[in-house]
């Protein structure tokens, strides 16, 4: 809401400075969002008197003026305005002044060879109106040399944000009331212009929809004369950012902005028969003031006459029955529309208006009759006419809320001591009635008050939140206890392990384009937004890989050499009972050059599937997964290269991770060059460690390094070409669980000396003697066992 200081002072008798008012508004919860001071814009413009006007020697349409600025010698100004003449007073901008309408700084200049010191201004140039036909003409009593801003009495404009719970402050008067309660001055009584009502209202006014429109007050005024509204009103409306239209329209806007009271004025000539509020008929259409047609349904309330719908109740009037310049007789409407229904109707129609904002938050039910009389009085005062008696159809809510208040609650909830007397004064000044036993009756306009806590808020905000002292939270004895859950500890550790292994942590959108999301999952039952911000952000991700691929693509497009990124976040699936099933996941994408071309290694090296495997195992290890027991299996998914990808499983069904090279078709779909490696760790699949707390849980199993030195023995086997190396290793390791502590592949070879369909795998086996060193005979026996185990897989020891 915007309003000028002058307007505020219409309602608030105060000596407070602008800054004091701003501070008070902030302190009581009416947040000041901005203050504009038009006088700053008009700095450098002053009232000046035109002494002489002569034709410009070189230009037909220009004149050379001699202007008295109120000090020193007259200055010479070249002016093109047809109304510039000797003896007039106008507004002179001196060099250095900035023209408000275009931001140009005035300079001393020669115009067609004649020097001009400044500019005589039009209303449009000073942003004071549309008039640009001539320069501003000031009245004769304007004092030459005075600042034009002072002459204009331009008033600072304050913009406040009104929270949805305070519809009573959606008018300047309500803001003045709050400020008065905060001790900033005295609230002035509303000036009600007097008028004589005579005769019954000639139109039948009623409400047929007591739920949607419990009250409809109105009257007819005949023989009004529409036209422009007076300057004082125009100035106020402009300060609120409202364009003046015509007196009758401006008056309804004034009533709304000054008192938070929406109203409507109909052209009586355009009405047929009775006027009344009723439920809309489903499918009924109305052409609203914004020249758009809306289709209504039966939950909505309309104002209608016997022939047609006139407007959407509480939201917007109709186009056809509004007042025009030649309107003669009018019907005034001051109604009470149900807040909840107004909100629903507005949302359904997608129509946000000033009226809706007020009705859906709740207008003051006590200000219908008074509002009608105020509007009537202002119309008769400014536009003439003869008002009929008022009609009060229906009745607005009238049951005041009574709250049993315990003043000690202010201390208990607000943490601040406020005396009972002060609490009473504050509440009373805000319009609450406080009985001796602290039964507090709330003013009807304060529909936000639900209980005692709301009264504490009223007391504390007026008393001053700045008076609330900090009080330490009680804390437990000793050092703070650990708070992280096992899941949080896992994620923290994993995140730092990933970064420690050279990956950059990225955070990408939780949503993906639909086709991308679908490409990355086997299920078609994904979460799809009804109202995505764009098609690229429509579906909740079922995998972390695509978001990282998109990042890698952006990086490649920017010329990045390598992208090594990971993200720790959630995948989103549908769970039981319509709830979401969000699974903690870690994704890795390795794209571009693993090693750039270099003096030592020559050509650039790309990432390969073993880089992905290393990342997967390192991170699973960090996550506490039993990596030694994992099985390398297939079925990483369609998004991966079928021959260069795998899953890591704990048991045949529990997939802990997938890794490998991204499928060329996937890369093509992302418009990326390969090769690109990717990893996805499914953290929800990692078995939780048994929770153990207490001092004993820190101790590890006892261990002493063996005293005797381990020995190694090498074995080279010829095996079928399709035998998985891991199978051979497992069988070798398992052949003597006592003596063999490790076995690793150190060479794989096909080619000369190896028959077709076979490959050679060389394995180094580590043997750990326990009590005493191995004898040759023992070593031979172990070797035989190893070879025997390998032979069962079709392996043959090479000579």
């Amino acid at each position, binding site marked *: 809401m915007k309003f000028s200081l002058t307007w505020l002072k219409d309602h608030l008798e105060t000596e407070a400075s602008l800054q004091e008012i701003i501070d008070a508004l*902030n*302190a009581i919860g009416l*947040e000041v969002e901005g203050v504009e001071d038009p006088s700053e814009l008009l700095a450098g413009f002053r009232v000046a008197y035109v002494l002489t006007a002569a034709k410009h020697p070189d230009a037909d349409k220009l004149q050379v003026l001699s202007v008295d600025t109120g000090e020193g010698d007259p200055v010479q100004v070249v002016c093109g305005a047809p109304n510039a003449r000797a003896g007039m007073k106008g507004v002179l901008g001196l060099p250095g002044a900035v023209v408000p309408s275009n931001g140009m700084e005035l300079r001393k200049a020669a115009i067609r060879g004649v020097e001009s010191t400044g500019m005589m201004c039009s209303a449009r140039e000073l942003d004071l109106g549309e008039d640009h036909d001539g320069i501003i003409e000031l009245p004769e009593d304007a004092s030459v040399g005075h600042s034009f801003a002072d002459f204009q009495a331009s008033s600072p404009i304050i913009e406040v944000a009104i929270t*949805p719970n305070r519809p009573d402050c959606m008018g300047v008067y309500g803001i003045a009331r709050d400020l008065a309660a905060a001790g900033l001055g005295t609230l002035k009584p509303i000036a009600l212009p007097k008028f004589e009502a005579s005769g019954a209202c000639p139109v039948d006014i009623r409400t047929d929809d007591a739920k949607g429109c419990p009250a409809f007050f109105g009257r007819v005024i005949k023989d009004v004369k529409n036209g422009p509204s007076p300057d004082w009103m125009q100035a106020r409306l402009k300060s609120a950012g409202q364009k003046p239209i015509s007196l009758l329209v401006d008056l309804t806007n004034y009533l709304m902005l000054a008192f938070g009271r929406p109203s409507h004025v109909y052209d009586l000539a355009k009405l047929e028969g009775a006027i009344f509020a009723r439920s809309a008929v489903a499918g009924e259409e109305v052409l609203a003031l914004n020249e758009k047609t809306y289709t209504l349904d039966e939950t909505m309330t309309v104002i209608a006459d016997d022939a047609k719908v006139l407007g959407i109740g509480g939201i917007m009037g109709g186009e056809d029955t509004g007042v025009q310049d030649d309107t003669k007789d009018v019907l005034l409407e001051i109604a009470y529309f149900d*807040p*909840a229904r107004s*909100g629903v109707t507005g949302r359904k129609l997608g129509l946000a208006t000033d009226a809706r904002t007020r009705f*859906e*938050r709740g207008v003051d039910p006590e200000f219908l009759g008074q509002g009608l009389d105020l509007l009537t009085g202002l119309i008769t005062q400014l536009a003439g006419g003869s008002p009929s008696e008022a009609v009060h159809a229906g009745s607005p809510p009238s049951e005041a809320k009574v709250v049993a208040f315990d003043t000690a609650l202010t201390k*208990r909830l*607000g*943490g*601040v001591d406020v005396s009972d007397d002060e609490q009473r004064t504050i509440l009373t000044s805000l319009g609450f009635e406080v009985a001796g036993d602290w039964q507090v009756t709330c003013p009807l306009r304060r529909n936000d008050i639900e209980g005692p*806590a709301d009264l504490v*808020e009223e007391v*504390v*905000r007026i008393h001053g*939140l*700045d008076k609330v*002292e*900090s*009080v*330490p*939270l009680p*804390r437990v004895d000793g050092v*703070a206890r650990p*708070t*992280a859950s096992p899941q*949080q500890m896992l994620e923290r550790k994993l*995140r*730092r392990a990933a*970064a420690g*292994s*050279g990956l*950059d*942590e990225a*955070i*990408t*959108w*939780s949503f993906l384009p639909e086709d991308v999301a679908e490409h990355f999952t086997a299920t078609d039952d994904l*979460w*799809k*937004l*009804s*109202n995505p*911000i764009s098609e690229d952000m429509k579906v909740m991700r079922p995998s972390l890989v695509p978001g990282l691929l*998109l990042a890698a693509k*952006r*990086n490649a497009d*920017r010329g990045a050499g*390598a*992208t*090594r*990124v990971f993200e*720790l976040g*959630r995948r989103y699936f549908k769970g039981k*009972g*319509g*709830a979401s099933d*969000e699974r903690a996941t870690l994704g890795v994408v390795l794209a571009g050059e693993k090693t750039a071309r270099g003096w030592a290694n020559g050509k650039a090296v790309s990432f390969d599937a073993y880089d992905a495997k290393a990342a997967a195992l390192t991170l699973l290890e960090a996550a506490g997964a039993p990596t030694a027991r994992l099985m390398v299996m297939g079925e990483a998914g369609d998004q991966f290269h079928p021959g260069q990808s795998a899953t890591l499983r704990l048991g045949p069904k529990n997939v802990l991770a997938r890794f490998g090279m991204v499928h060329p078709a996937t890369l093509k779909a992302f418009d990326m060059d390969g090769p690109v490696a990717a990893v996805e760790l499914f953290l929800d699949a990692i078995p939780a460690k048994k929770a153990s707390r207490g001092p004993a849980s820190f101790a590890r199993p006892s261990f002493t390094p063996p005293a005797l030195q381990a020995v190694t023995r090498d074995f080279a086997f010829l095996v079928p070409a399709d035998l998985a190396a891991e199978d051979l290793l497992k069988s070798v390791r398992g052949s003597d669980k006592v003596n063999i502590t490790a076995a690793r592949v150190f060479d794989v070879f096909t080619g000369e000396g190896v028959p077709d369909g076979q490959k050679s795998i060389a394995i180094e086996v580590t043997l750990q003697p326990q009590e005493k060193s191995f004898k040759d005979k023992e070593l031979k026996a172990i070797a035989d066992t190893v070879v025997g185990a390998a032979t069962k897989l079709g392996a043959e020891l090479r000579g």
Partner: protein
Amino acid sequence: MTELTDQKQAALAAISAATNLDALEEQRVGALGKKGWVSLALKTLGQMSPDERKEAAPAIQAVRGEVAEAIDAKKAELETAALEAQFASETIDLTLPAPDQPKGSIHPVSQVMDELAEIFADLGFSVATGPEIEDDWHNFTALNMDESHPARAMHDTFYFPDKAEDGASMLLRTHTSPVQIRSMKAQGAPIRLIAPGRVYRSDSDATHTPMFHQVEGLVVDEDIHLGHLKWTLETFFKAFFEREDIVLRLRPSYFPFTEPSVEVDVGYSNEGDRRVVGGHGDAPGHDWMELGGSGMVNARVLEFAGIDADKYQGFAFGLGIDRIAMLKYGMNDLRAFFDGDPRWLNHYGFSPYDQPTLSAGVGVRP
């Protein structure tokens, strides 16, 4: 004896002239070897009379010593030269670059979340989480925003067409506040927690992204009041920004889920084009900046969460994590947070070894 002297002179000359270890060895064998001339000379001593021997022995020994010393010296000289020659051939250009060791990084949002967890753990707060895809009961209704509440419309909510089993509309949570409800329902009171996480609003411009991060704070106990809220936020910001001159301004505001509701501003000044938190907002060169919303938990919310509102009361607050990260570490573009650009991540990200701790301070200085 002159023969011996001549032999010695010749040998010393040959030793000195030796250019390699082989030539030197030849001299050693020739002189000191079993059949070398020194050895032969020593053998003659046995045939001499004691007197002759007395005279000849020292002389021969002296020659032997002289020759052996010369050989050793020459040997050392030749070995040094050989080593130098080897070094010369093995010298490499160490100004050439070493292999790259990729440096990973932690995203500022994660770092700040860890900082939050660390600071609040010291105050006895645990970290709670909840689903990002929520139902409207947890996101709105239980937070005292029923269907017709005007504040709902102000939330720019992303909706799904799906309904939960109980008919509730599914949506992307617009704030972390539903975690309050879930945590209170699960744990009851008293409770102290923070709930950091992703939240979503259908809003996108230079300073808003449709996804961002928030942290919720909640304390419910028997006698918690606004003074505790103020202290908690002050204490947090002092620890987070590592400065004692943090000044908060509480302003009355409105949130359906708190009553009274309080907007929290912090004093700051501008240094260059950067906002620096600290000092009183009304001091010269300073101003106030909105940091987040807070207040005393509305009794209705407590009741929705199954807490006895006659016995318990408490406060809640919400802060933008991205925003406080930007204030602390100087980023100015929120959109870059979600781009995954390694250049940005390397500049604004953190070393994995910078795990926030209270003893080292929860902030990382460049």
